[in-house]
């Protein structure tokens, strides 16, 4: 959501796309609504039963990109599989476009699944089929004619930038290319909803970027609702507008991405955010960090800057408050959901820490003392 170019086209009449209508006065119904869902896996031999999901409420608006983030084992894979009925909840409702998927039989589920695309961490392409054949598979399954399949696959390969790989086999492609095939395949039946199961977790950072920007493009241009699970905040930051944090089968925090990033409340959220640059304390400091100040120690203060204009002034503001004594240790300025966002680690003399935090807060900057280093 880049706001700057938008300012120039604001007065131009917009084409009446579905998205524009949805943005207007029409009610933006939720495409996915999960209510009070629990999932208990029965005890295996010698084990005890596993409560994978515990009273989950979650919804995704039409056209939104919603991320569910959590550590491995938090229940996110189970949660995303409830939406296309690959898993059945033990209790609760899973509405997709007004239909309670949890109540459907296998045969009815098959029809619903054809309107939900899914992409996977390990791509799951058939090694025996070419790129074309893989993208054609869901269409064959849906009983679409050869002629129609030929007409549809080409534009999809163009969309994901693999038109020249049409007759290649997956073993001849790179990871990023394989995931692009996966995306084209997921879009083949023109679904309303795209589920992404850790789609970038097996890719290197650069490829992750390009796959994420493809997903973002699809989200905006095709007005496709995306629901993704991930364990990386970086992915959430890149693509989502809503985020839910899941821990031990419960949603512990949720809201707009910008709000969650700028003011995380739950410990799990904070822990997941700590991986991002500017959040992470350099290892040398982390090992020496003490809770209480000592003689001559310096306080480590995290200053977060969210949303306000003129991000350049953050440094002068810190300097103004902390005086010439302060030191910037680490920091990053970024854009989240189209809004500027920054996080900095600053050190000041321990006795001045409290007063610095207060003054920064008065100046509209969020600051907290992480500890003291002697």
């Amino acid at each position, binding site marked *: 959501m880049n706001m700057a170019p938008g300012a120039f086209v604001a007065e131009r009449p917009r084409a009446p796309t579905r998205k524009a209508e949805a943005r207007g006065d029409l009610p933006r119904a939720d495409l996915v609504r999960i209510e009070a869902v629990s999932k208990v896996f029965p005890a295996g031999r010698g084990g005890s039963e596993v409560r994978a999901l515990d009273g989950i409420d979650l919804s995704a608006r039409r056209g939104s990109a919603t991320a569910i983030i959590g550590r491995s084992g938090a229940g996110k894979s189970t949660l995303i599989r409830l939406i296309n009925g690959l898993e059945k909840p033990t209790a609760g409702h899973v509405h997709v476009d007004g239909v309670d998927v949890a109540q459907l039989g296998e045969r009815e589920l098959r029809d619903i699944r054809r309107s939900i695309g899914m992409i996977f961490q390990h791509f799951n392409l058939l090694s025996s089929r070419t790129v074309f054949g893989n993208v054609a598979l*869901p269409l*064959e399954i849906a009983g679409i004619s050869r002629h129609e399949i030929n007409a549809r696959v080409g534009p999809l390969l163009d969309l994901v930038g693999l038109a020249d790989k049409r007759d290649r086999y997956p073993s001849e492609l790179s990871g990023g290319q394989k995931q692009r095939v996966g995306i084209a395949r997921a879009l083949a039946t023109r679904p309303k909803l795209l589920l992404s199961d850790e789609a970038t977790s097996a890719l290197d950072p650069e490829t992750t970027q390009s796959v994420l920007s493809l997903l973002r493009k699809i989200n905006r241009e095709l007005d496709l609702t995306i629901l993704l699970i991930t364990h990386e905040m970086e992915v959430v930051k890149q693509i989502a507008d809503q985020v839910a944090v899941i821990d031990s089968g419960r949603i512990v925090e949720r809201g707009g991405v910008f709000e969650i990033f700028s003011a995380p409340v739950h410990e799990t959220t904070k822990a997941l955010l700590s991986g991002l640059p500017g959040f992470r304390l350099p290892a040398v400091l982390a090992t020496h960090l003490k809770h209480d100040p000592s003689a001559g120690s310096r306080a480590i203060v995290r200053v977060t800057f969210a949303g306000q204009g003129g991000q350049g002034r953050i440094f002068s503001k810190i300097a103004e408050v902390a005086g010439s004594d302060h030191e910037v240790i680490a920091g990053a300025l970024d854009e989240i959901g189209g809004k500027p966002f920054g996080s900095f680690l600053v050190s000041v003399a321990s006795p001045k820490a409290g007063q610095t935090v207060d003054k920064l807060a008065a100046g509209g900057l969020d600051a907290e003392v992480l500890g003291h280093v002697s």
Partner: protein
Amino acid sequence: MSPDIILLIAKAAGQTLHMVAVAAIIGSVIGIPLGVFLATSGRGELFAAPGANRVLGAVVNATRSTPFIILVVAIIPFTRLVAGTSIGTNAAIVPLTIATIPFVARLVESAIREIDPGLIETARAMGASPLQIVWKVLLAEARPGITLALTLTVVSLIGYSAMVGAVGGGGLGDLGIRYGYQRFMPDVMAAVVVVLIVLVQAVQSAGDRLARRFDKRIRPR
């Protein structure tokens, strides 16, 4: 070696090929679906039927653990029922086929179990029916493995077919025993062995080549 003997060898080779071909075809037609069922009928699988799976698995194991020569004798009444006689090439096809079915089934089962379960989940997520999953995913992906399984089956059948000579089944094995061993004609024995080696070699390399062509997992070049 006299022309008569050469003619005998050619005729015996023809009988062997006949027995092997018929047993391999019928054995595959029944064995492949059985293998697919064994691979997909466990608890929580595509065609979950744990009871039937266990029963069929036990039958397959029982057939496979019976020595072939004992199987041949044990099912003589059944052979007579099917082929009308218990001696000769056509009669030999019956025990050969019975032995082939579980052999093919187990090999196909293991070829299918090699397939990443993620692919089955992916097909389910696309709305595929169980039969579509079998056709478009399992059999398609296991094609190189199944090709190798059938190659191995044919090679084993060539060996088994030599054993049915003992019950008057005809074929190269029969010729080798009656002329080579009992009439003490080492040149016939050697000729029979050479023909068998060439046959097995030809089948194996054709099967390997076909399997390699089907296998797209390895980067070509």
